[in-house]
């Protein structure tokens, strides 16, 4: 059984932890974590259970990389417990933190659409449990349950669209700022 403080019984060794940790958990906590995410917010329990079949649970030690910038993207992750840092590798091989993601937050969702290289590196900041949803499994779901798959894709498109709108607003703000500033080259 997982301890109340969220500590995993096999957290010191992710290899054995990944094998044995599944036996000690109920399915409900996964569906609960999924339901907290905006991507799955509109889904009922039966639909979440379908996703439960295709997700992977991984445990990461502190400072362990989830993926590296430049690697082919395979899918997205949702932080179940713990936290992860998103970094860009600087030209002098250092790392620049872009964001810290905590329980319920997700990242890497663009990799569900194609295998373009990851645009950032993700490293677990502490012992964390992360749920992974990967492209091959999503495509399998789309073949078997196209209605449910499309429902998810629509939600994903909404999230990406919202982000695009936000970036457009930012870009517009920067452009206005730039226009109002008199710079003489």
């Amino acid at each position, binding site marked *: 059984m997982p301890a109340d403080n969220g500590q995993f019984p096999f957290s010191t060794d992710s290899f054995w932890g990944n094998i044995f940790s599944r036996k000690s958990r109920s399915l409900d906590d996964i569906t609960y974590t999924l339901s907290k995410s905006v991507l799955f917010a509109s889904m009922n329990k039966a639909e979440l259970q379908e996703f439960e079949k295709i997700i992977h649970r991984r445990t990461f030690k502190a400072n362990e990389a989830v993926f590296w910038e430049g690697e082919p993207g395979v899918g997205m992750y949702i932080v179940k417990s713990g936290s992860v840092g998103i*970094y860009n590798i600087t030209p002098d091989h250092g790392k620049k933190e872009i964001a810290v993601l905590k329980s319920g937050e997700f990242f890497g969702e663009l990799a569900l659409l194609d295998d373009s290289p990851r645009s950032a590196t993700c490293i677990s900041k502490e012992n964390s449990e992360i749920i992974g949803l990967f492209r091959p499994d999503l495509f399998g779901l789309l073949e078997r349950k196209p209605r449910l798959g499309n429902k998810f894709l629509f939600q994903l498109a909404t999230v990406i669209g919202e982000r695009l709108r936000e970036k457009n607003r930012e870009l517009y703000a920067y452009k206005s700022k730039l226009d109002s500033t008199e710079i003489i080259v």
Partner: protein
Amino acid sequence: MPDTTQATKARAGESQPLPATGKYLVQLSDDFFFKFLRMIVALVALFYVVQLLPKLSGVLTTLVAAILITAVLDPIVSLVERSNINRISAIILVYLLIFLGLSVVVRTSWPLISKQFTSLAHYFESMEADPSVSAFDISRFNLGKSIPFLNLPSVQEKITSNIESSLTEFLRILFDGVITVLSSVPYLIIIAFAVFFFLKDGWKIKRALIQSMPNRYFEMSLIILDKTTTQLSRYIRGQLIVSLAVGSLSIIALTLLGVRYSVIIGAVAGIANMIPYFGPIAGAIPAIIMGFMDTGSFAMVMAIAGAFAAIQLTENVLISPYVVARSVELHPLLIIIVILIGQALMGIWGMLLAVPVASILKVIISEIRWGILNYRLKDKELL
């Protein structure tokens, strides 16, 4: 546990002090000890598995057959599942459809198959009773007119016995093969059950397999496993569809031409078609010899050769481009080498299995190579 304390502190946002030197050494040696122990256990397990392999060949064959059939049926079950039918019902529906289809095929073609097998069985019985009686007498074909040295009785005798023995051997292998399949009905039931559970719980098996991978190799393994299984199942499906098409067309053509044992020889042509380059020729030769032996007419030989050429053309232009994955194709020189290796290791079965096995290995090796080139497998915990 020291790690639990560290993790709790990390969660609380406290800084993690470096472990004392002595403690660090103890941790290192513990880690080393457990790694060493795991390696020993793995080696002992591997040793016993290798020892057991010959005894488990029946189980392995059943398992491999079940996996191959699952690869073929899985997309069909998924297709049925699309119509809001749950997976178990979809599997049962596909099983029922296959059972119905097989019943119809067997029921309609049974008289012909039965007749040909009875005739073949009688032939073997007569051969065993009196081996001196020749079913294939070359002297009655008047070949001496165009090829004079064939008039020599010793040459005729030699040719007749050579052709007869190789044809008899060929038919006997086929006959034994079919008898083996028919006598292994209990195995077929086990395979059917295994396929059912592979179809139902395949995702669990795949997930358990991938779940055991360390984080460092996880994404790479996931994508390699997916690409490999996708390509292999497409390859197996493609081969099966091509074999079925070539086999059925050959049976129809040979039956129309009135060749003896048309069903058996046509089925072999379908299976042999899995061997590139050699297969189509190997499939046509028995039919040509049988047709020539029965009629003695070169027109018959030309008709059979023409029929096989037309079937090959249909296969290459209309069927293969749509069902066989190009990425699995091997270089012609490599095909010749692997077929020779297969022949040296396992005879006819080796020749038949060489190309599929080499293709499977090619897919696995190229995908692993792709993974190694594209994923950062070292220094993952540097930062």
